[in-house]
């Protein structure tokens, strides 16, 4: 492993010492008055480090909203979010952005990639955004990840020339390139057939098992949740249950 930031503790310590992410009294309300929608109601939650957590629940139960708040993509109405030891609630937009860039990885359901960049450029994008030099070490790392994910031969292609499963795997490769503390995935297999789904999910699980990363995945498919170590069940903006597997 290349040198990492001081807060980066070895994987074996992470799983036991401190949760990867924690929410306290997290609420998110859209609109106000009569038409207010309470997407999250005082959610308390801990995401264990070094594990694969699935967030499940009915449509509209607040899964995506929870993920957006945990990942600093949106600001909660109330409550506090701490990720990898940093409290996100007080950060201004620039610091929050830099935090996401340096510490988090993302895989979305669709439109994951920038259409005008090739797959390879998409994978290296987070490093470039961080202003890091793309040295041979970074390139070989990218190649290594691409090979693990089985997309090494598609790196010169643009997203429009890739299948849905390949696009998702490029997105996973991109999420891994910065060696983030936490990877968030919102329905990463929502658009895929069962074969591609299985591959993508297996890759996500191996990033947890083999690379020691923490993954939080939103899904409403039981088959997808089966890959996780741990399931958080959402219902009407509340955490209904946390089930360890």
């Amino acid at each position, binding site marked *: 492993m290349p040198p990492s930031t001081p807060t980066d503790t070895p994987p074996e310590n992470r799983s036991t010492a401190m949760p990867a992410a924690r929410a306290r009294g997290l609420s998110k309300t859209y609109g106000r008055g009569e038409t207010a929608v309470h997407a999250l109601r005082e959610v308390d939650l801990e995401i264990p480090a070094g594990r694969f957590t699935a967030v499940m629940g009915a449509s509209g139960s607040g899964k*995506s*909203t929870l993920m*957006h708040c945990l*990942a600093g*993509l*949106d*600001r909660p109405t109330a409550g506090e979010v701490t990720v990898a030891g940093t409290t996100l609630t007080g950060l201004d*937009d*620039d610091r929050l*952005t*830099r935090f*996401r*860039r*340096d510490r988090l990885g*993302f895989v*979305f359901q669709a*439109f*994951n990639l*920038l*259409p*005008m*960049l090739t797959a390879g450029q998409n994978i290296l*994008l*987070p490093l*470039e*955004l*961080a*202003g890091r030099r793309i040295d041979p070490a970074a390139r070989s790392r990218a190649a290594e990840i691409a090979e693990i994910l089985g997309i090494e031969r598609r790196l010169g292609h643009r997203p*429009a020339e890739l299948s849905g499963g390949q696009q998702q795997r490029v997105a996973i490769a*991109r999420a891994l390139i910065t060696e983030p503390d936490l990877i968030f995935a919102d329905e990463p297999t929502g658009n895929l057939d069962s074969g591609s789904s299985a591959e993508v999910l297996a890759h996500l699980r191996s990033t947890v098992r083999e690379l020691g990363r923490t993954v939080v995945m939103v899904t409403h498919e039981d088959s997808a949740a089966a890959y996780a170590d741990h399931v958080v069940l959402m219902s009407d903006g509340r955490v209904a249950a946390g089930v360890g597997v």
Partner: protein
Amino acid sequence: MRTLVWASLRSYSRRYVAAALAIATGVAFVVVTGLLASSARNGLAAGVEAPYASADSVVAQPGVDVAHRMMAEAGDRATPMAFVQQPVGTDGRQLGEEISVGSVSTVPTLRWQDLDDGRWPRGAGEALVDTEAAADQHVAVGDVLTVGSRPTAVEVRVVGTASSPSTLDGSPLYLTWPDLARFGDQVSVTAVALLGEAPALPEGVEAVPPDRFVNNLLTEINNEVDAVAMMVLLFAGVALFVAVLVIANTFAILFAQRRHDFALLRCLGATPGQIRGSVRVESLLLGVGGSLVGVLGGAGLGLALIAGVRSAFASAPLGAADLSPVWATGAFIAGLLTTMAAAWYPTRQVLRVSPLAALRPDDSASARTTAGRVRVALGIVLVTGGLAVLGWSIAATRTPLMAAGGTVCFLGVLTLGPVLVPPLIAMVGRVAGRALGVPGRIAAANAVRNPRRTAATTAALLVGVTLTAAVLTGLQSTRDSLASEMDTEHPIDLALTGATPLPQDLPDRLESVDGVAEAVAVHGTVGRIADTEVTLLAPEHVDGVVRDALAPAPGTIALPYLLLQDAPDTVTVSVAGRHADLRVTRGAGWGTAALVAPATLADLGGRSAPYAVWVGAEDGADAGSLASDVSAVAGAPTLEVVDGFSRRAWVDLQLDVLAWASVGLLGVGIVIALVGIANTLGLSVLERTRENALLRALGLTRSELRRMLGFEGLLLALVATAMGTVLGIGFAWVGLQVMVEPAVRSAPLSLPWLPLGAALGVAMLAGLLAAVLPARRAARVTPAAGLTLD
């Protein structure tokens, strides 16, 4: 279909704002032109009939000689409408170098001015002053004015003040005919009003009834105003053409974004005709709305402008403005047609959508369809054809050919836009984007994702910039070509010549005047040529103050064109009993003296004394006040003052006015083009909401996102401006060959670096500004909101 149209308008109307603005601006331009034209027409026509109200007949354009004869024969019942431009001073104070002096009748019924104070002049030596001019210049009844410069100067006493019912015929100062007539050939006589029977008139000159004369005058005014209005309408046409480009681009983008909707409708059973109809209604409504706003806004703006000009310049010939229904309707229809024409091509593209397109993924932000072969071929044919016509126009020096060739060539460049512009932008983007890192690279990539859209966006700006660069370069080159001619015509900035020797210390005193760089005394004497007394000057050591060699060879004498016009090739000059036969050369610019070589003067022997001081002005000295400041120090009324400097400055001013008026009028088109850039960026930002959210999620900060869009706007503006400048310089060169070269010795291209650089800077700044609103909107969206957007 009605529900559909209204729903579309509701959800997309905000995206039409820029297009509506473009059309409204173009229409408002036309309306303002109409209002100003009518105001100028009314202002100029007001009171033109007054001078002829009680005349029995009017002789139009009789010429000075006929006027002289008529006045000699019928002076007690005739009065001329005569003007002369002369310097006027009072009490050692110069009131102006070129004051228009008009005429006042001594026949009571033919006096047309309205007397405000004092009495009417009764004959020579008495003058009437315009009431407002008198107040401005602090001239009062009883003052004595000196009109003209030394040899022909006239002294008159102000006996009354009056105002003119007609702006066209009004002057600050009126003299009676006997005084006016002393300016000889310099006087222009536009008409003679007569009481009673008309005297015998020479061939070609006839007396007409006053109402017919006034009608002709009104027609003339109308034609002149119309000619100017047509010129301005040309610029309005340019603005409307730019609006067409902007609107067509808006429609193309909007339709591309709605391709899915259209295809879905087709899947659900809508016929192409129904979709075409709904889209046509949309463009019709846009055209009606935009044009209406343009007519109303233009009317408000025009009236405000006229009111402003009238309150700032009381003497401006602007009368009541009325917008004729024809102009208003014309402007409205022009706007409507422009919109419909602009929507035509994009609408056709929409109809090509197959129902299946709804099922395909949608990436309207990037279209890899570059120009087809037909377009490239057409572009090349237009460019080469245009160039050929331009070449022909140079050979034949025909301006209409040049305009046609230039237009065709430019249309060719616009047609080739999708092939030419994106690679240029990519190239510039690659170089300049490096400094900005990833945001720069993405911006450069975004700027060329849809070559057609990029080309259309830059095309709008290209039109205005090309014309501006051509005008600026053309006028700068014209100015430089004229400069050497001006040096010959006005060799001395200020030449002061005395009837008697001037004080020795005058040059030193003059050098302390603001704006004077150098003053040199010129020695001379008074001699005679035949019966005429002539001041002979022998310029020496004057290199610092003359712009053209003014050194007559020994044995020659330089006479001004207007002095002793009938003199033979060789004249005998005598000074105090000594004679010399000198060969005559002609020139101008130093006054009414004659120039000889110092050796010739020495041979003639007369007592030499400083009879003249020649003054060189500092660069940028105030042309309006230099002559009067210098005259004040020198004691003007006894001196002849020739003000070459203000003549030069006047020509410069004409060119400047021409340049800046054109640039100002072209500015409207440029503003529309910038609205177009902002529009394209804004619509692209809407399309790329998800991409931008993704970039933000991955770690692009808000300010980086803003910078990215700013750079995209900058790139578009920069490349359009650079291309336009190069094209404009090319066209300016052709224009010089066709229009200026035949008239002067040589017309080399000279580039106005400063204005061109300023134009480039302004365009780049404007490109950045055009990105401000879209960038702010893009940066406001949180990543979560952007990602969940449909």
